[in-house]
């Protein structure tokens, strides 16, 4: 892995499932030069729309011993993308210079065959434009030099209020994302599919607070008793920890 491979690292321990990344992604990508992410009947009874990013919620365990997992899912920009070689026109491609998997909307014939070859279900067909669409890792803003340097990140990363998403080059071992993957046991989803997804997830981590008895009871309380202590007479001396004033 020597070529540059941009990717997202999503910390499942932090994600609270607020969908800010979803709405921010939709807002940015529906407003861009590539045309809208079409919606059909968006405020009606049967809405249908194209999104690059979805947040799903899963539950592990049985009540009352359950754990809720919010799971953001977008294109994983696989290093072995199964969707790319099957495209008959070459509209679906993986960019050499940064490893982003993209669709050339001007070459796509709308046969949907690439979506059949994605195990993650992250390609969504735009029925109005008649082409397949997918996450671009905000290719139109991460290199935009008119933006301040710290804003040259995908819209979802900037939107996450909890900081669950980070973005960078996973082929560079010193990058922030590579370190996050190494230090926090970052993993790929469906590794058995052989797709080598570039996006990684960080696992949920159990944080337990252990409180010992002596932390609840003051060890240096000579009367072994909390609460009001005897009030000394004015003529008597008063002692810390023995009398109350």
């Amino acid at each position: 892995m020597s070529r540059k491979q941009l990717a997202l690292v999503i910390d499942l321990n932090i994600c609270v499932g607020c969908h800010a990344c979803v709405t921010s992604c939709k807002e940015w990508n529906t407003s861009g030069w590539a045309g809208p992410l079409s919606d059909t009947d968006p405020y009606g009874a049967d809405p249908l729309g194209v999104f690059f990013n979805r947040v799903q919620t899963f539950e592990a365990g049985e009540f009352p011993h359950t754990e809720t997992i919010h799971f953001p899912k977008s294109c994983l920009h696989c290093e072995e993308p199964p969707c790319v070689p099957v495209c008959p026109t070459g509209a679906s491609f993986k960019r050499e210079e940064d490893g982003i998997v993209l669709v050339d909307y001007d070459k796509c014939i709308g046969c949907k065959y690439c979506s059949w070859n994605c195990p993650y279900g992250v390609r969504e067909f735009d029925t109005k434009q008649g082409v397949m669409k997918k996450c671009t890792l905000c290719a139109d803003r991460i290199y935009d030099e008119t933006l301040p340097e710290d804003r040259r990140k995908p819209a979802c990363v900037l939107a996450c209020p909890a900081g669950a998403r980070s973005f960078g080059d996973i082929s560079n071992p010193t990058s922030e994302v590579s370190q996050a993957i190494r230090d926090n046991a970052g993993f790929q989803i469906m590794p058995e599919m052989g797709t080598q997804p570039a996006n990684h997830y960080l696992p949920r981590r159990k944080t337990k607070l252990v409180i010992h008895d002596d932390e609840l009871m003051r060890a240096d309380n000579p009367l072994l008793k909390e609460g009001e202590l005897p009030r000394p007479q004015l003529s008597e001396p008063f002692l810390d920890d023995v009398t109350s004033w």
Partner: protein
Amino acid sequence: MKPAFSVLFLTTLIGMGQGLLIALVAGQFYFVIGSGLEHDSGDFYAKGSAVALVLLGLGLVASFFHLSHPERGMRSIMRWRTSWLSREVLLLPACMGLAALYGLIHWFDITPVLITFGNQKNLDLSMAVGFLLAGTSAFLFITTGMIYACIRFIKEWATPWTVVNYTLMGLSSGFAVAAIIAAIENALLRDFLAGWAALFTLMSFAAKGFTLWRNKHLPAPFSMKSAIGVHHGHIRQLSQGFMGRSFNTMEFFTHVSPEILHWMTALMLVFGFAAPSALLLAGWADRYLPALIAALPIQYLGLLAERWLFFAQGRHVQNVYYQRMS
């Protein structure tokens, strides 16, 4: 997966057309390796090729209904090195061109001898083009089947049996059409073609039966553990992230009741295989033309049901993420 009618018609029609072309070439070869004294008229082969061209052409037209940008269709020959879909797009017109050539050569009876072998048998132009045509048709069967068989995320499809089934069903329906044309034209090949049509139908029946049994015993198509990377034995989806529909909930699911699947399976087995086998055998043994002619529409209806079920029963791995709306 959601069955697309364009693909249902495309695969069944071109399968029939390819089967018909292979039947014609096989018939011609049958005479060449025989005594060499008798053979069918060029008219028979020309008319057969014309029917095959119509079938392939209808399939090609149906395929355009699957594309949202048919005007860019020509681009789809670009990635033939990696994409089976691209290879099919290349081979279909090649097959049609060769079929037209084969028909014209027979119609105008242009049969110069190309090679004479040691046993005094000749390879003439029509037979040489025929071999090329049969090879192209056979390879087209492989490409069509591989379009589905190469998708490793649908376990029902990812098997060599997908290619075998597509080929056998194409041969069965194609030989049946060839037998009808031969019977109407009073060609000598009538019994040869009807017999093989019956045989191919029985073979496709057996292969389909085995595939149905195989698909019943497949392991679970996906695992929740690896889908979200949480190693827990009991995971369920609470929300798929939206309340409406999406491409993922439409393209990859067939929302029909189990009863309909049950009835479609019965329709497929009876109309697609059992009834045409019996009718073709009757048409072959008794030389009873109405039986041969009746077999074809019945079989075609059954093959449409087969193709519909092929899609409806394909379970894609991505469905793991779309199990529950809210």
